[in-house]
């Protein structure tokens, strides 16, 4: 994945390829782009914001898509087959959560053409039988990844959702 940051002295963006789609724990530690992208959800529409988004999207979409597919393939590894060295289901689940959060950020202001073109890959398509990654993992079951259900499980909706539904 490329890593993008704004230089201190100017408003230009700099991106450098840093991560290849390998999953050995570096993923969650070394993504400065996260702090940049996660601000998009709450920012107002401005030309500057949109040029920033377009800049990042132009470099980020394809590697993001490939990494999503890579994580999905690893998570779909049959129990009888070993995962690659340094990978674990817990680490992969953490990567998947990061990817879904990033998906939300990347789609928060507008529907980027890249995601519209690949909508079936993420959301599924009943006509073609494509499952869709997000739809698949909505109903995914891995008992070892569940929280403590004995403790009156809270479904962790964020305060943002609650703000959108203030009367609930």
């Amino acid at each position, binding site marked *: 994945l490329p890593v993008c940051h704004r230089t201190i002295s100017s408003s230009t963006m700099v991106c450098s390829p840093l991560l290849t789609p390998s999953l050995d724990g570096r993923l969650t530690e070394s993504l400065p782009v996260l702090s940049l992208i996660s601000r998009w959800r709450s920012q107002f529409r401005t030309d500057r914001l949109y040029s920033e988004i377009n800049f990042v999207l132009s470099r980020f979409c394809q590697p993001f898509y490939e990494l999503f597919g890579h994580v999905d393939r690893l998570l779909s590894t049959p129990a009888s087959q070993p995962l690659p060295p340094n990978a674990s289901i*817990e680490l992969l*689940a*953490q990567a*998947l*959560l990061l990817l*879904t*959060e990033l*998906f*939300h950020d990347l*789609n*928060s202001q507008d*529907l980027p053409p890249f995601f*519209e073109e690949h*909508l079936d890959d993420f*959301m*599924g*398509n*009943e006509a073609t039988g494509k499952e*869709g990654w*997000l*739809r698949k*993992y*909505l*109903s*995914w*079951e*891995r008992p070892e*990844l*569940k*929280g*403590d*259900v004995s*403790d*009156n*499980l*809270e*479904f*962790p*909706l*964020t305060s*943002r*959702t609650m703000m*959108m*539904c203030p009367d*609930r």
Partner: protein
Amino acid sequence: VPGPLEKIRASICEIAELYALKYSEEFKQLGSFVNGVWTMLTTVGPSGREDLVSLIDFIFSQS
């Protein structure tokens, strides 16, 4: 305490909510996602259930 599985589901629910709200024309898969959330109702505890019902209610109100 929610585990990784619940966090992933919540994150995907928020994406479905975003798409239902902003991109409903393109989001033909909404029904499939609502079905998935509906099925989840049978597997979560009482407090989680209330949130999910609110979410389904919200998504339907947008579609």
